[in-house]
């Protein structure tokens, strides 16, 4: 395999596929590294060989990915599935692991298109088998053709819950309860953003239709739920929903939760790039320009890992980044400028509803108000109580709490707990979450074997460890 590439794209979701295909179409040598076995990302997972029965419930929107995947396949980009990037360097070098062996490649430009993840929110019982993230289970359905065992309870907030409930219902899974934690006041904070959103009546109408359908199909639909918990010994057996101080218990074999989507920032944090705080959706996102440029000339960010705007926007952002890179590397031409303009217009149209949706489904204010006994760090089993005790004993920096408690030090490398660690510390100290820096990410960003590191094919460590252009 070639070592040097003009562009290395990490991730083959909508942003990665569009960016890689576009770069390759413009004559650049492109390498795509993706952890999944086939292109599509989470939204279009397994688009190339989907089972008919699943395809039937996923519908038109999912099919959009088919064109993208085909485009990537024929674009001439070198696509590497089941390949985990584990370190990105400021000079465009990327280490990745494939089939148990690691190597380093060099790109003139690296595009981080690693997408987003569901916001992990701790609650009592969330570590029990049978409790899973709703969007994740939907992705599992796409790739592996499996549905969770009913009765299923769905809890949390956000459009994805409705989508997943719809899919399960159509596949005959019993969804016995739907606990919506979206605060009723959210509608008010979303109202100012309604006007631009109205220009996308198609989108809003779809949302309303989904909501109506879900209400009809699920056993009980409860709004205004303040929080919920999972109950069981070695597996979830029941779900308790709290509303106005009253608890409702339902039996459940599966609890699917969803508390919104946050960008995956592991590489931008590993690179120590500047991040900004979004006060509405309450997450850190990398500081990039409209082309996805970071402060490092070799590093770009495309798609939801820059800011969560959804699959269609991600595709457009990937395309926009590709054109920007083409211009920098002297490819493309005058034609590109026109295309860039048109893409930006399409993106703006796509984002019309975003502020409305973000405000409507902003995280509920009590996310960090978990009971002391609740596990925050799933890997190292660190409870909220431990974190609070350290804060009250004077540990004011997330890194300090991490070092003493081991919160964020397990195999997931803080992916599941760092956002809640910050929220809990913020509410304990009375500080704003944006004043608490996110945890550092230390390479390898993916776990690798010691033998694999010993035998990895690394590029020579040269003076050009700084940024190259």
């Amino acid at each position, binding site marked *: 395999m070639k070592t040097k590439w003009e562009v290395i794209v990490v991730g083959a979701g909508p942003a990665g596929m569009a960016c890689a295909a576009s770069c390759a179409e413009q004559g650049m040598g492109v390498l795509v590294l993706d952890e999944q076995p086939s292109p599509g990302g989470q939204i279009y997972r397994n688009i190339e060989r989907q089972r008919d029965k699943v395809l039937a419930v996923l519908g038109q929107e999912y099919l959009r990915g088919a064109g993208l995947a085909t485009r990537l396949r024929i674009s001439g980009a070198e696509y590497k599935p089941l390949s985990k990037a584990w370190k990105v360097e400021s000079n465009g070098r990327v280490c990745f692991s494939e089939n148990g062996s690691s190597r380093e490649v060099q790109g003139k430009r690296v595009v981080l298109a690693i997408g987003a993840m569901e916001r992990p929110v701790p609650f009592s019982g969330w570590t029990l088998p049978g409790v899973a993230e709703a969007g994740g289970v939907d992705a599992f359905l796409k790739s592996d053709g499996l549905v969770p065992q009913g009765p299923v309870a769905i809890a949390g907030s956000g459009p994805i819950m409705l989508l997943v409930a719809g899919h399960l219902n159509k596949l005959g899974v019993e969804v016995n309860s739907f606990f919506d934690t979206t605060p009723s006041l959210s509608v008010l904070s979303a109202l100012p953003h309604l006007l631009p959103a109205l220009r996308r009546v198609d989108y809003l109408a779809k949302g309303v239709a989904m909501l109506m359908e879900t209400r009809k199909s699920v056993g009980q639909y409860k709004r205004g739920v303040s929080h919920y918990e999972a109950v069981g010994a070695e597996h979830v057996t029941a779900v308790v929903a709290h509303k106005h101080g009253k608890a409702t218990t339902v039996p459940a074999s599966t609890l699917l939760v969803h508390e919104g989507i946050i960008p995956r920032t592991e590489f931008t944090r590993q690179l120590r790039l500047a991040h900004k705080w979004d006060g509405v959706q309450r997450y850190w996102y990398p500081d990039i320009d409209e082309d996805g440029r970071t402060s490092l000339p070799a590093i770009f960010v495309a798609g939801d890992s820059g800011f969560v705007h959804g699959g269609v926007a991600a595709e457009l952002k990937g395309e926009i980044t590709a054109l920007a890179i083409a211009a920098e590397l002297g490819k493309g031409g005058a034609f590109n400028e026109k295309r860039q303009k048109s893409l930006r217009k399409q993106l703006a149209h796509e984002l019309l509803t975003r502020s409305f949706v973000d405000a409507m489904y902003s995280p509920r204010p009590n996310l960090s108000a978990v009971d002391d006994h609740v596990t925050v760090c799933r890997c190292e089993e660190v409870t909220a109580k431990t974190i609070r005790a350290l804060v009250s004993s004077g540990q004011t920096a997330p890194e300090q709490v991490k070092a003493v408690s081991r919160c964020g*030090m397990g195999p997931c490398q803080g992916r599941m707990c760092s956002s809640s660690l910050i929220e809990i510390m913020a509410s304990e100290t009375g500080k704003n979450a944006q004043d608490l820096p996110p945890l550092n990410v230390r390479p*390898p960003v993916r*776990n690798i074997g010691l033998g694999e590191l010993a035998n990895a094919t690394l590029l020579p460590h040269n003076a050009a460890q700084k940024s190259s252009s």
Partner: protein
Amino acid sequence: MKKVDCIFIGGGLMGLASALFMARDGKKVLVLDKDCTGKHASGVNAGGVRSLKRDIAELPYIHGALAMWHNMEKIVGSDCGFYQTGYLIAAEDDQAMRELEQRAAQTRELGYDNEMLIGRDRLRELAPIVREHCVGGIMSVKDGHASPAETCRAFHAALVGAGGVVHNHCEVVGIDPGENGFCVHTTSQGKLYAEQVVNCAGAWAGKLAHMIGDTLPVEPVGASVLVTARMPRLLHPFVAVQGRKLWFNQARNGTLLICGGYLADVDMEKGLTRMNFHELQACAKVAYDLFAVTDDITIVRSWAGLDGETPDHFPIIGYSNKVPGLFHVCGFSKHGFALSPMVGQVVSALLQGKKPEVGIAGFEVERFDRVSDLVASNPIPHENCGNLSNYK
């Protein structure tokens, strides 16, 4: 603002420990850290508490310190995660074994009886994962492992409990030495006044000395550590290898810490380290050569704490010979953690004009007065892994 007896610049363990013992003697002390206490090497190192094969000059310190580590609960109200594991150095061949025998004989002669030679069978018993070719080794049973983060937390808390004051996120931007002590200019606390100032700024010690008009040959370095996922118990003692750069131990929680003085790239502009995977790969290769379990080991993380290093790899302890009232305690990179409680006692005594339990002869800064000569006649041994093998 009232003048304090002493301001410690740098909230690492050297500063925290020295300040703690001074505060307990009734002195007014301030610790300033531009980040937060224990943020750099003190709070993030491999946690080894090793007397085995320490440099001869450091033996009185480490034996004093070891006694303290075994008694930490009483000293700072926390055991600091210390537990006795023993520390052993394996010999890969007869030549290496002979070197270890000589070393053991030498420490015995000096009156220390802790370094014991062990044969092939005992080595296999203590560390079954060491590969077959190793012929024996040397061991010190009293050595152990502590949690650096917990140690920093505990010393910080004990210091505050003793009446000391810690200012985090307080950077020193200027120091005026005067006839009646020092005026220290800071970012968050304005001007602070003290009779004496201690430079315990680790990686920034050289820079700080320069700010006060002194010169110190202390360079920033970052020693890397590879950390694994938790594993079933593989071995109890710390294991090193004679003549090679490798320290290997399993913490109480089951994770392995693998290191050996492999360096990270240092970015002093941002005050951070960046992992150099060529160094880490070299480290992994040595581990691969020596341990029979490497395919099961999963690396989860790597890191490197910033510290200061001197040209001869020995620390600097003592008053500045240029600025009266300025005291340096720095240059401990890769081997300071274990020494820190004892160094703290010694520094505290010296600052109060008392006779310390252990002298500082050989650690004073004077030895670098003719740095260029020294470097020329005694080049830095690159194979040196933090004093582990520099004694031959």
